[in-house]
């Protein structure tokens, strides 16, 4: 079976203005969503208390809310978690008491209403830890971008590196937009997913640029930049789509069967794989073109380490 019987010949570079507009709309929508609705940040970042409990039968949300209100947790968020029997209670930075005792007090309050409640998970994150985790997450993002920028600039060329990284910056913004729109909890695992997506998306762009260099070295004729980039995107299109499919299969399985804890993580990767594939095909090469990438830029760059290439 083959999706593309022969190498397709789609003029990605020529049609780039349409995709630019579409991208701009998506980006602006995401930024507006994040600015207006905001992210539903998990306690990893805000600090607070989360208690996950399991009921013997169907959990009664109103009863649970009532019990918590009676115990003084009027701002507690109560939602079902995974199944109708499981509940998640979230309390933001409680005031006037030892944060470490709140988990036990929530459990006691719920037990008072329904004695058979089983506590499955308690998480208490102090505000200072929340700030630190946010800071470390930001550092990890920054480190990833800088590391990849340096690597791509070193292996390829500055204009390609910029195109690649801009295409990869685009992906997390859209994922953030998605989380702002759906108000799914944004926690540490989602941040980890975003980092994995950045690696993944850049991976796609890198394969395309790798092909650009090969096209140039292989044809050795006076090919125009536009044709060179188009050819590379088209020649790798089959692979790009295939890899996205195989990755999507596993993350969809993860989303559907991996349990409630991994829902946000897998949702972020699903969105990331889709937008990452899109940005690699439609944006990375087009940006390099608009940065006035010339075949000569690439010819000056030394060919890759001969030792590395001789290995297989």
């Amino acid at each position: 079976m083959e999706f593309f019987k022969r190498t397709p010949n789609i003029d990605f570079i020529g049609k780039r203005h349409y995709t630019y507009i579409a991208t701009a709309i998506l980006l602006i929508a995401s930024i507006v969503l994040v600015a207006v609705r905001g992210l539903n940040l998990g306690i990893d970042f805000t600090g607070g208390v989360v208690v996950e409990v399991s009921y013997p039968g169907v959990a009664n949300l109103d009863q649970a809310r009532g019990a918590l209100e009676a115990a003084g947790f009027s701002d507690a968020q109560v939602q079902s978690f995974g199944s109708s029997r499981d509940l998640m209670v979230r309390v933001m930075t409680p005031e006037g008491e030892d944060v470490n005792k709140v988990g036990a007090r929530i459990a006691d309050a719920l037990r008072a209403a329904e004695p058979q409640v089983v506590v499955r998970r308690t998480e208490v994150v102090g505000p200072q830890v929340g700030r630190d985790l946010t800071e470390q997450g930001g550092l990890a993002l920054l480190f990833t971008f800088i590391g990849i920028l340096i690597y791509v600039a070193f292996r390829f060329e500055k204009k390609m590196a910029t195109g690649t990284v801009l295409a990869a910056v685009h992906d997390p913004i859209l994922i953030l937009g998605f989380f702002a729109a759906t108000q799914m909890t944004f926690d540490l695992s989602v941040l980890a997913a975003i980092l994995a997506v950045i690696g993944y998306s850049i991976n796609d762009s890198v394969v395309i640029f790798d092909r650009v260099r090969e096209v140039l070295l292989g044809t050795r004729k006076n090919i125009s930049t536009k044709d060179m980039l188009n050819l590379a995107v088209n020649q790798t299109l089959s692979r790009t789509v295939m890899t996205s499919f195989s990755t999507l299969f596993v993350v969809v399985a993860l989303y559907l069967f991996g349990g409630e804890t991994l829902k946000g993580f897998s949702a972020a990767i699903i969105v990331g794989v889709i937008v990452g594939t899109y940005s690699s095909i439609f944006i990375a090469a087009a940006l390099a073109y608009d940065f006035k990438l010339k075949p000569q830029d690439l010819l000056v760059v030394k060919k890759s380490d001969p030792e590395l290439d001789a290995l297989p």
Partner: protein
Amino acid sequence: MYQIPAWRYWLVGIVLAVGLLFALPNIFGEEPAIQVSRQDRGSMDAGGEERILGLLEASEIHHTASYIEADRLVVRFASVDEQIRARDAIQDAAPGEYIVALTSDSRSPGWVRWLGLKPMALGLDLRGGVHFMYEVDMPAAIEQTLQRLAQDIRNQLRRERVQYQSVNVRGETVEVLLRPGASVDVARKLIKGDDPGITLTESQVDGATQLVASLTPDRIKQRQDLAIEQNVTTLRNRINELGVSEPIVARQGLDRIVVQLPGVQDPNQAIRVLGATATVEFRLVDEVNNPYEAVQSKRVPIGSKLYMTREGQPVLLKREIIASGDQLTDATSGFSEGRPAVHVTLDSRAGQAMLKATTENLGRRMAVVYTETKRIEEGDRCQGTRSGNQCTQEEVISVATIQGVFSNRFQITGLMAAEANELALLLRAGSLATPIFLVEQRTVGPTLGQDNIRAGMIALVIGAVLTFAFLAVYYRGFGLVANLVLICNVILLAAVMSLLQASLTLPGIAGIVLTIGMASDANILIYERIREELRAGNSPHAAIQAGFEKAFSAIADANITTLIAGIALFAFGTGPIKGFAVTLVLGIFTSLFTAIVCSRVFIDAIWGRRRQLKTLPV
């Protein structure tokens, strides 16, 4: 026609065989077990094993296996019920002799254990247990050091008769204001000594000389490291008292300590034992002044301090501390004349101080002050003394008349039985020199851990089956090879994880699932290349050769970018996220090896040796 060298076959064969061996322990699963270690921390021997097994037999509890591992006896059971009964039976039959920890252990047969092979270590989110993160109060550690330095300076100046107006700790320095005419040179020498950790500056204040001593950055760093190490050691001791199997106590970053207690279900008991920075001080009661008067006039006599007893009565205590918690060498709870008591043993220095104090004050009263330090947030109420975001609650837990002269052995009474137990536990494990605060706490119940494993495995199997089917349909014969390659990849990944004993977390399982998807990428790159070469009219053998060669640089580049993200995650991530980074990074290496080396060997073995090869099933 091109054939790959024979050593490649050997390499792949050996790596896969070793990989299979290391991955093997994971297929046996786990069952409930107890870990028995001796209370006196001696090692378990065959005699001990016989005794325990005898105890179990006497209670008609059947075990499935027993063996000694790292000084501890492990006994496995078929059910949790038997496990719990076994623990109770041992504790009832031989109280105080053994520490019994509930755990679960691999069902792997004896020869696998004999080879030292272990299954993957499960993270807390899969095993169930509690995770705590403590912050060490570094400013307090420095403050303590400065206070001690100030006291030293006062003593030295007094001894050498250098007159001074004041010696005070201010900020991160000690300010020494000399009287006019006092010898500055002598003072300098006394304060600085040959200590390279102190720097001195001199200035004039109203005609008098002021010397300011501050600690060098090296000395501060040294003090901070000490504070962490002291606390780590103390926490370890306290955890031993709790009887937890395979606890983790580790420093994290500059001022944090992570504690993981697998299997512990009640975080509050653990918090009470681990977290409270409780210490006791022994002080004499001020018998001269009236405490009620001091309460009314709000004036506390010089040299005394006002305290409240548990019953709410005021009591005036002398400021001098006879002995404090860090001078305790042992404390056990028990009974004294039918009442709960803590039997205390002090070190020799404190013993001498106690001897002197009791000799001079026979018939007078001595009090035990219990000090508990905890962290509070802004806006929280503090029932004791507040300093920044820390709240110190001091309470007089016993006031007793000194009945006789004693030195380093005595009893504290006036406690409830449970309190005596807890206080003794805290005292015995040693007092925390620098206060620590609990800043993060995560508890995962055992059923949730099991559910997480099941969900992760289901997702893994379904994801893998989908990918396998897709690759087989799309690339036919080569797709089947890719599937074989992906299976090898998972086996190798499991082998490396088992070998390194890196904890597998739920995001870690997600990382393995993701690795399957992403590892297909390398295969896809190669197969797409082979198809292209075939389309360009190359012979099948040449197409395979060229496919692998030309795809290599793309595969390498693509994996290095993911590797960079993985390393960032590993460096900045914590807990379960680190588990994700570990599987992601290890998965990159195993998938590179399997996709490039293994798959080449498989393809060569199937198609590379056929002389008349017209087409390839790709």
